[in-house]
């Protein structure tokens, strides 16, 4: 279980996350959604230790992800853009991660490589691979140790439909094994398929945190995309000057 407590982060005076409190339970897929610049990626990066929070704590099963690098052996992270060193191959990267983590967990990389249709491209340098293929390498790196926490930042961007479906199956499998899965995506139809819970961020503040069903009921919509539009409009009107001053035009 990932627990985020009073998380605040600013970049050059611009606050990206404001006192965020969230709990990502085990065996649950939580989708973090929101408009561009709402703080989704920063939240993910704070959890995995790429970004240092200004305030707050983050723990995985009670262990701080910031203070204890060893806890990252239980976290799988797939970044938005998979740009790796041009002269290394996918095989090199997989072997490197194996070398760094193999003492703690058995890996399922070979199975994933077949699943992601990567075998024929594995020995090629990254410079020779398409964006989608590099994304597949990123997926293998994130999933290969069946992590307790799986953080996926726009995981299906650039993937073909077959591999996208297989990735969704893998996400469902991770959930069934008890992993805490956190996913961001702008493809809300995909989110609706895989997510149990929705966290909606707006300007670094958690605006909605609840189940998908509750969100659909609350907004009286049939689909997640329409429900999100309702949330976005509510936020726009809440932050408009008229609303702030409380007066009518």
């Amino acid at each position, binding site marked *: 279980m990932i627990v985020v407590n009073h998380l605040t982060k600013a970049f050059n005076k611009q606050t990206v996350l404001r006192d965020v409190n969230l709990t990502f339970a085990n065996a649950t897929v939580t989708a973090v959604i929101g408009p561009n610049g709402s703080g989704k990626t920063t939240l993910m990066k704070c959890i995995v230790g790429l970004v240092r929070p200004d305030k707050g704590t983050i723990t995985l099963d009670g262990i701080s992800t910031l203070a204890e690098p060893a806890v990252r052996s239980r976290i799988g992270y797939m970044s938005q853009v998979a740009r790796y060193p041009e*002269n290394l191959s996918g095989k090199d990267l997989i072997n490197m991660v194996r070398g760094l983590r193999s003492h703690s967990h058995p890996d399922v990389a070979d199975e994933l490589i077949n699943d992601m249709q990567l075998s024929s491209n594995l020995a090629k340098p990254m410079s020779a691979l398409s964006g989608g293929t590099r994304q597949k390498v990123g997926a293998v790196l994130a999933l290969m140790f069946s992590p307790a926490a799986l953080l996926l930042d726009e995981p299906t961007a650039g993937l073909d439909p077959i591999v996208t479906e297989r990735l969704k199956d893998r996400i469902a499998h991770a959930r069934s094994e008890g992993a805490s899965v956190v996913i961001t995506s702008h493809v809300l139809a995909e989110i609706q398929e895989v997510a149990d819970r929705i966290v909606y961020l707006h300007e670094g503040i958690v605006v909605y945190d609840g189940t998908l069903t509750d969100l659909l009921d609350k907004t009286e919509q049939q689909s997640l995309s329409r429900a999100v539009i309702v949330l976005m409009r509510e936020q726009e009107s809440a932050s408009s000057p008229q609303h702030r001053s409380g007066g009518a035009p």
Partner: protein
Amino acid sequence: MTTTLLRYVVRDVLRSRWLALYFVFFIVATEGLLYFTAGEAKTVVGLMNIVLLLIPLAAAVFGTLHVHNNRDFVELMLTQPVSRGSIYTALYLGVSLPFLVAFLAGIGIPAAIHGIVFSPPILALLGAGTALTMVFFAIAYYIGVRVQDKAAGMGVAFIVWLSFAVLYDGLILALTVAFADYPLEAATIVMVVFNPIDLARIIVMLTFDYAALMGYTGAVFQDFFGTGTGIIVSCCSLVAWTLVPVLMGYRAFSKKDW
């Protein structure tokens, strides 16, 4: 952990065409100078000028570029159960060591073929080049980590190189002329210590009689840097020139958001 990461950083750099070009350049330049110039001293002076300009420039530019071009690789490493210290060490050594070996082999192989590899001037040149490689990769890595924008980082790296390679000497010359009526020996020695390129140049120059050509200043340097104390001071200064930017870079890397 560090050795695992180091292996893959080195593997990536070894496959870089820039490293191959760097090695070939030194081998061609050394062999060419040994072939066309009569005498070991002239070859070393010719090589010294190349080493003092090219190594700092190549290290400053390639080191800074390496940080910016490998942001996602660094992110991948940071998401693994490895401390930031191990990652920084692996990155710094993984880039600097292949370039160091390319330099040592590029000069050492032709020198060995000509039977002069163990002569004091060549050994001093190899030592000076080793120090400059480690110093300027350390500075470059610090710049790469601190300056977020790639173009700005490259600009800062170039200005740092220009300052040490050209502007600093101009400043010393101007001060020497302006204060010609005062005894400046001690001040000149101190100023030399604050520029790793000057320090490397003097270490090489003092291994042969060409120091005499530097006139009174050369004699002053000979009196200080030619002694045991001088050698210890110059070696300690070059070690400090490596360690200080490495530690500053590590500090910046530890606090950096990726």
